[in-house]
């Protein structure tokens, strides 16, 4: 035995390598495989295990529970199917297998091809053009329903319309929505409801079902009837994931019948809220008008006051009062000025008065009988009586002898 044997991989390493190889291959990650189902097993886990086989090979397949729950067609042993998925490796089992995410019966596969052909043709005819789509009226007065009279879709739509927009009138054009003759029946119902009821909008609806169940909506007669409808058409067919030819032709596509009813109508509660807002706007508007009028009134009242006869008298009285006050002030000023002048003159006069000299010891002598001043000796004779004025009064005197 050589000391160093060729390097050997572990089982895990080989398996992981194979897994990377297979899972890295683009073709193997996205493929449709057709074959006959065998060894179908549905354990309690909810996953589905089976094999697809043809005359010379077998492919193991798994459908996980989450996928299994939304499968529309139920697998049966011995039947032929087309399955879609990706190839992966289950390391613990040493197996490669197909992880399936879509299943269709072989018949469905044929339908799918037909669907694609019709879709391409109608698209080329311009039936799906965006310019063809008409606006949905915001306020449908009359809503046409084209659906089965016994289906859950009808009740769903009626409940929704009743809750959201009970102001509308609903016209039901009952029609078969699946089976033989359904396409003609649907097309006829569309024509009839337009001709008789003239609805503002039409809801073309059907609840969920298998691809075969929805097949009537992939018929070109229905497509042309939708395109020819004078009223805009909203489709609500099947579930979220279902697309039919009618959906492509419709003016608006809703995922479900309930959603179609919602898209066709305003909500009552929104209307109520709008109404409250409008009522508030009304009060605000009147408030503004009142404010402006009051403001103008105040201005006018002010101007009127000054212009009125009474106002003018008041104005004149004010002016008169003002003039009187100023005249009075002028007189007062004049008087005080005169008083000041007068007292100055008095002082001056005092200095000139002959009586002022008396205080210095002079006397004024007059004859008693007459007021004449005695100025010379010759004015008097002995015995004459005289009056002598000194600073503080007058006394009598008699001439004794003249002294010449």
């Amino acid at each position, binding site marked *: 035995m050589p000391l160093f044997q060729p390097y050997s991989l572990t089982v895990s390493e080989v398996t992981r390598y194979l897994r990377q190889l297979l899972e890295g291959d683009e073709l193997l990650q996205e493929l449709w495989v057709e074959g006959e189902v065998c060894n179908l097993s549905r354990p309690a886990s909810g996953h589905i295990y089976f094999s697809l086989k043809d005359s010379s090979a077998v492919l193991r397949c798994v459908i996980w529970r989450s996928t299994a729950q939304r499968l529309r067609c139920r697998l049966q042993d011995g039947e032929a199917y087309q399955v879609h998925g990706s190839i992966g490796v289950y390391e613990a089992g040493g197996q490669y297998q197909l992880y399936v995410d879509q299943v269709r019966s072989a018949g469905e596969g044929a339908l799918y091809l037909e669907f694609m052909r019709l879709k391409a043709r109608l698209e080329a005819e311009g039936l799906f053009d965006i310019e063809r789509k008409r606006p949905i009226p915001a306020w449908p007065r009359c809503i046409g329903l084209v659906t089965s009279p*016994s289906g859950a879709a009808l009740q769903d739509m009626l409940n929704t319309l009743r809750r959201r927009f009970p102001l509308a*009138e609903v016209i039901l054009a009952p029609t078969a929505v699946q089976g033989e003759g359904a396409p003609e029946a649907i097309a006829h119902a569309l024509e009839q409801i337009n001709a008789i009821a003239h609805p503002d909008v039409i809801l073309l609806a059907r609840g969920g079902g298998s691809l075969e169940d929805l097949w009537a909506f992939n018929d070109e007669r229905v497509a042309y009837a939708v395109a020819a409808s004078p009223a805009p058409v909203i489709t609500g067919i099947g579930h979220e994931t279902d697309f039919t030819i009618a959906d492509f032709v419709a003016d608006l596509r809703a995922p479900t019948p309930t959603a179609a009813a919602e898209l066709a109508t305003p909500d009552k509660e929104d209307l109520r809220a709008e109404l409250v807002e409008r009522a508030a*706007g009304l009060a605000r508007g009147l408030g503004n008008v009142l404010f402006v009028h009051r403001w103008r009134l105040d201005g006018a009242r002010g101007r009127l006051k000054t212009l009125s006869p009474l106002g003018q008298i008041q104005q004149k009285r004010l002016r008169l009062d003002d003039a009187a006050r100023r005249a009075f002030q002028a007189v007062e000023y004049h008087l005080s000025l005169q008083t000041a002048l007068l007292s100055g003159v008095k002082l001056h006069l005092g200095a000139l008065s002959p009586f002022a000299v008396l205080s210095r010891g002079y006397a004024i002598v007059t004859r008693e009988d007459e007021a004449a001043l005695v100025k010379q000796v010759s004015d008097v004779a002995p015995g004459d009586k005289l009056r002598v004025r000194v600073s503080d009064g007058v006394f009598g005197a008699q001439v004794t002898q003249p002294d010449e």
Partner: protein
Amino acid sequence: MTELTPIENLSYEQAYAELEAIVAALESDQRPLDEAIALFERGQALTQRCSSLLDQAELKVRMLNGESLSNGSDEA
């Protein structure tokens, strides 16, 4: 309020459209006071009308029956 007053004959849509116009008019232009008050009163009546229409509305359902309409209430 008698049935002859025109406001009672207005649909929700008509009444609401008129209400919107009145609010816009009151909010934008100046107008004589009596006109403004008349508009306000009309607006209030319209609000009432819309409100009661919403309150009283019951979805009318009829069914196409061949060439005619029947008052089909097929509530299941």
